[in-house]
């Protein structure tokens, strides 16, 4: 892998990139930043680790936007990929993506109370990793709890909690609020995990990064991605109206809630912290799921470390 070959300063003409990052796409459109793209883009509405990886494998996609887990599993399974951009939340502990929902009457107040309980677990997804990390943080082993394998799609988790099929399940987005609103009366509660669960990445397969033209285009895209992130931070009203209400079909109320839940997202020009946390996650998952741990450097392309922050600085 030629991850040391310097990035080209300009994107060669004729370069095409297939990008699976629908949220940024919308932000670029609304903000007008999309006009600055100097190469041709094919947008794909693909998100989530398994799907993005499948599309990578099929050579149908060049770059995707996910959390921390997918790049790790891809490398364990013969699909070399690297993260090329990283952003986090402004106050990550106060603004986590997930909270643990507790079934009515389960009597759980802290992570330590997880012992002996049934916990919804979706291996291979961020929620699954979070459960393992929460157990680790509470000093529990996998065998101290009952992991109930459930896909986290849609409202499966809140429904499973409400019907007391599980005691604990990580909830995200509107489901956090909706779960309490609907079942709080019955005794449903939430537990904060106090862990970092906020990283967001762009990642691309090695063979795309090895193509100098595409790598240059990726660099340009990373810059725009950073500026789009900034733009969303600064224009929450427009964002709610255009994205959550206009495109996703949510109510204004839900949109506002989600924006508040996310808080501000910041693009970092220094990956050392995130690499450290990633390495811990890799080691934990390897130990719990029976994989060989590997060096975190395998899943970062350091050429892009400063790309995002540089683009931000330049635009201001």
């Amino acid at each position, binding site marked *: 892998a030629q991850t040391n070959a310097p990035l080209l300063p300009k994107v060669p003409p004729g370069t095409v990139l297939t990008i699976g990052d629908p949220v940024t796409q919308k932000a670029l459109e609304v903000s007008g930043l999309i006009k600055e793209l100097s190469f041709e883009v094919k947008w794909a509405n693909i998100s989530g680790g398994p799907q993005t990886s499948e599309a990578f494998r099929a050579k149908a996609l060049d770059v995707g936007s996910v959390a921390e887990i997918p790049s790790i599993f891809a490398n364990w399974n013969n699909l070399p990929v690297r993260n090329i951009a990283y952003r986090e939340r402004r106050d990550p502990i106060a603004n986590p993506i997930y909270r643990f929902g507790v079934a009515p009457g389960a009597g759980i107040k802290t992570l330590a109370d997880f012992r002996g309980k049934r916990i919804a677990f979706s291996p291979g997804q961020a929620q699954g990793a979070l459960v393992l990390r929460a157990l680790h943080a509470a000093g529990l082993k996998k065998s101290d709890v009952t992991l109930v394998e459930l896909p986290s799609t849609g409202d499966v988790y809140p429904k499973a909690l409400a019907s007391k099929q599980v005691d604990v399940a990580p909830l995200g987005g*509107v489901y956090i609020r909706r779960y309490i609103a609907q079942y709080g009366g019955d005794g449903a509660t939430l537990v904060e995990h106090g862990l970092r669960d906020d990283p967001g990445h762009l990642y691309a397969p090695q063979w795309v990064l090895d193509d100098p033209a595409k790598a240059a285009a990726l660099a340009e895209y990373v810059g725009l991605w950073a500026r789009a992130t900034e733009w969303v931070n600064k224009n929450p009203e427009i964002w709610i109206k255009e994205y959550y209400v206009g495109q996703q*079909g949510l109510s204004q109320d839900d949109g506002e809630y989600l924006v508040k839940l996310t808080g501000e997202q910041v693009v970092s020009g220094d990956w050392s912290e995130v690499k450290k946390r990633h390495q811990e996650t890799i080691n934990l998952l390897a130990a719990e799921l029976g994989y060989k741990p590997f060096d975190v450097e395998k899943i970062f392309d350091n050429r892009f470390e400063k790309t995002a922050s540089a683009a931000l600085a330049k635009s201001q």
Partner: protein
Amino acid sequence: MATIWDADEVKSSRPSSRESAHTVPAVARPRTSRSRRRLGPGPAIPFGLQIGPALLVLLWVAGSALGWIDPRILSAPWTVVEAFGRLIEQGRLQDNFVTSATRALLGLSIGLVIGTILAVTAGLSRIGEALIDGPVQIKRAIPTLALIPLLILWFGIGEGMKVTTIALAVIIPIYIHTHNALRGIDSRYVELAETLRMSQKDFIFQVVLPGALPGFLLGLRFAVTLCWVSLVVVEQINATSGLGYMIDLARNYGQTDVILVGLVVYVMLGLVSDGLVRLLERRVLSWRRTLAN
């Protein structure tokens, strides 16, 4: 010469012979009373097939109104009707429907043609069967969900993949039903065709296809619902509109009323499609005299 058998033991266990009388006074109207017990299902109840669904809707309405159904579990019908209104007002339902319908009907048409051709080929030639039948059974044995990664590999993530997936799904019932019906055609009619020195074309269009039509139409009933149902799977992948996409999105955000709107649309599409095929069945199979009529 005849030694008449004696079946008195048999007879004694049957109802004793008695007279039954009936009179039909009115002239020129269908005679309905009769002396013989009727074993078939009898005449069709008008709108009979709509009774079951109507009852379910009634149950839903009553259950929600009387508070038997927890609205957190199943939204009340009026909530769903409201959501319907909202989605239509916003134009989302129509847009999604048009996108989905285009995909579904395109996939259906392609699958229909290919499935029928495969069935006739495999049905009339042992070599065709050897080459076609196994792969079709293999396709059938693999869950679509598990096939998606491969389909993405081969057909990408664009419209082509979506239509192909639907067509592949549709091919299965069309092929299997048509092939089965075709192989089930009474050999007496094949003998007849042989003595009439029919061309292969005439044989296919006069004997084989019309003879296999009842089977084909049953396959079509499966195909028309399958093409809608497949949307849920294919529109998870790189779709920005469509009914499946709409449901998926709503599931992500927990919009139960929108999910139910989607399901209700599915049900209506399914019932209407199936109903249309049944109507077609009654028309083109009017030559049949069966238990049904």
